[in-house]
């Protein structure tokens, strides 16, 4: 790293170290076990169920790749994966659902557009007023005017918006979709998630890393609250289904085959992401990112723009999460804002990354598939164990078990995820397939 980009001889390609080829015994063993587990699930649960599980695992692998570049490459902790996933799912829904004539055929789109224009005008006005101090107005007075004007304009616009959205809900149900292919929604979902990530990252990345965790946790809850309560946009708790697939659906080909095609489609996307990420990891850019992660001060001393690089990584990770969320949402064929839970969409992904190996893409994909299989299989297992415990308690102590034991058994999985996180951090902080850090001897 001692050569700067300008003075480097173009014929010289920097090498991290002499790569020592070793037989990938650990990888082969772990993936062998994983394959055996998948085959066992196929044998036990049938092809349609197991293929469905694999597709969902593949979608989670995309989310985990997003988190692994944030946490593993750059040491940023995103505690709000759920929010970005929900944004992706929302965009997939909005773009792919058929056009709602009851909405577009009336005057409502014009009304909505008028209110949105008012909103833009109000923002422009406030921005203009906030520049008044350049014309010689005292700063405290300007701040007062900006705050009062902002509150009044906000109230004016929001009450107009409430009227229009109420009209949409009562007359048309909801806005409906755009009737485009789902992949447009995935791309826009990724872009939207990246935009939100940029907003959060821009504010938090210069501060302590804890603040990013707090802010992402908050934005995830806000995105969920917005999607859940904006009935005019998402039908809220009434949910939207079905979402069309980009591949032939189950109605045409049957469950197993259609899901298998969707799986191969997702696998291609993962392969592309994996290839690009590995290229980036081994490229000078990736070296720079790792240098910043491992020693911020020395990287800054070499003239690297730390906050900018961090922002790049964070936005990139969020884009992948939005994309994965879109693919997952389309596969589920159902948009249910209440179905997005911190446990399923944030902490599960976190376990996948730290168990698989943060910073190691192969390890992350392994972690995603392995943890997802365990997660899915733990549901019947937890019910079985709870019934065993209840039977034991009733038989031995005459314990009168409460009636909601089944839901409690599922809650116990929260406990297992928590234990996994703390245990992995304590005993295997590098994961099962650690990142291979090359070093000069």
């Amino acid at each position: 790293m001692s050569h700067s980009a300008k003075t480097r001889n173009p014929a010289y390609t920097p090498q991290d170290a002499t790569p020592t080829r070793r037989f990938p015994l650990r990888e082969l063993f772990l993936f062998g076990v994983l394959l055996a587990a998948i085959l066992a699930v196929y044998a036990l649960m049938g092809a349609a169920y197991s293929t469905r599980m694999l597709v969902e695992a593949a979608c989670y692998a995309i989310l985990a790749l997003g988190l692994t570049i944030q946490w593993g490459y750059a040491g940023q902790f995103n505690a709000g994966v759920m929010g970005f996933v929900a944004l992706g799912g929302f965009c997939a829904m909005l773009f792919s659902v058929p056009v709602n004539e009851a909405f577009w055929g009336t005057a409502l789109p014009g009304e909505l557009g008028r209110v949105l224009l008012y909103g833009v005008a109000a923002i422009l006005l406030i921005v203009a007023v906030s520049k008044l101090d350049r014309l010689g107005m005292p700063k405290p007075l300007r701040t007062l005017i900006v705050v009062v004007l902002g509150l009044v304009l906000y109230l004016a616009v929001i009450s107009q918006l409430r009227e229009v959205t109420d009209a949409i809900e009562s007359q048309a149900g909801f806005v409906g979709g755009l009737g485009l292919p789902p992949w447009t929604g995935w791309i826009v979902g990724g872009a939207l998630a990246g935009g939100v990530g940029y907003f959060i990252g821009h504010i938090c990345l210069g501060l302590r890393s804890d603040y990013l965790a707090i802010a992402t946790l908050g934005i995830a809850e806000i995105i969920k609250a917005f999607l859940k309560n904006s009935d005019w946009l998402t039908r809220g708790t009434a949910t939207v289904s079905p979402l069309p697939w980009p591949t032939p659906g189950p109605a045409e080909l049957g469950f197993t085959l259609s899901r298998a095609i969707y799986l191969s489609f997702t696998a291609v996307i993962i392969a592309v992401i994996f290839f690009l990420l590995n290229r980036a990891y081994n490229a000078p850019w990736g070296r720079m990112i790792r240098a910043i992660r491992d020693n911020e001060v020395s990287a800054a001393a070499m003239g690297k723009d730390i906050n900018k690089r961090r922002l790049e990584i964070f936005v990139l990770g969020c884009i992948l999460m939005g994309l994965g969320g879109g693919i997952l949402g389309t596969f589920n064929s159902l948009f249910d804002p209440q179905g997005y839970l911190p446990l399923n969409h944030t902490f599960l992904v976190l376990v996948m990354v730290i168990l698989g190996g943060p910073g190691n893409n192969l390890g992350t994909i392994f972690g995603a598939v392995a943890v997802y299989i365990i997660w899915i299989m733990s549901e019947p297992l937890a019910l079985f164990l709870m019934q065993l415990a209840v039977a034991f308690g009733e038989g031995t102590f005459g314990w009168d078990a409460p009636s909601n034991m089944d839901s409690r058994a599922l809650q116990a999985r929260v406990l297992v995820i928590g234990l996994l996180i703390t245990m992995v951090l304590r005993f295997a902080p590098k994961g099962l397939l650690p990142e291979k850090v090359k070093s000069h001897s």
Partner: protein
Amino acid sequence: MNELAFFINNVVISGSVSGSIYAIGAIGVTLIFSIMRFAHFAHADMMTFGAFMVLLLTTLFPAAGASLGVPTGVLMLPLAMLLTAVLAVGIDKTFYKPLRAHGVKPIVLVIGSLGVTLILQGLIRLFSGTGGQSLYVDDRKEIFRLALPFEGARAPIVITEPQIYLFVITIIAVVALHLFLNRSRLGKAMRAMSDNPELAQASGINTNTIVAVTWMIAGALAAIAGTLLSLDVTFKPDLSFFLLLPIFAAAIVGGVGHPYGAIAGGFVVGFAETLAVFNWNVLLRPFQESFPAWLELPSNLAFVGTEYKIVVPFFILIAILVWRPTGLFKGKVI
């Protein structure tokens, strides 16, 4: 004048209630932040744990409070504080201390505390079920209606028994903490350690004791906040995710590592929340005649709906991080 009573009920009282709870929670968070240097995400679940302990004890001895004339839940609070303090020290010994001994970055401790959050939540849900339960098992929740001393004021000011307990206990807790931090040897040692851990250790302060004491205080305060919140509404095992953001926002607004700032931050966040969901039309309606004719007030003039309440602490958090990341009172840790 009815509008005024409505305003007092919906803004002044409920703002003070949530403000007190956020303040007590934020003190714990800010103390942990200043001694251990990480954001403790499991704090809200320690609150739930404290409330759950009160629920268990109250269910075991439902009539204990009646003989003394206080609700059983309040009587059981000291015991629950002790249990939660023990839990907090135990969590530190089992989960955080090994990580600290490895010399990990603070952010790894944050992830560890998220794991602890899930463990606590899982345990509480496993034993209590997922529904809400009242902490008033055998007692009756007293509701006081105070009439306003004005002509034509029909709507009374409504305040409930747990709310009065909340205000009293908050004041006691804050005064006790103030005396502890400023007068006692241990409290001074704690402040020294939050200023400079190495220097404190070099001058003969036993940092392990300080860490344990910090956890005990944080645990006891968390039990107070959780119990009083659950007394006021109901006990729910999944309260914590809705409390985390306001509490962290309060701690950061007040300046991290600054207990008095945390109190101020708690009330700022609490009042901001209630002011934002308050329907201002209620206050403006009496003046409807004096407005120009073209101005017709919409019936709902709240800034955000109740369902978007969580936006308020987030907005405050973002605003403070943008304009004044050290907080209102110049916290130490950024």
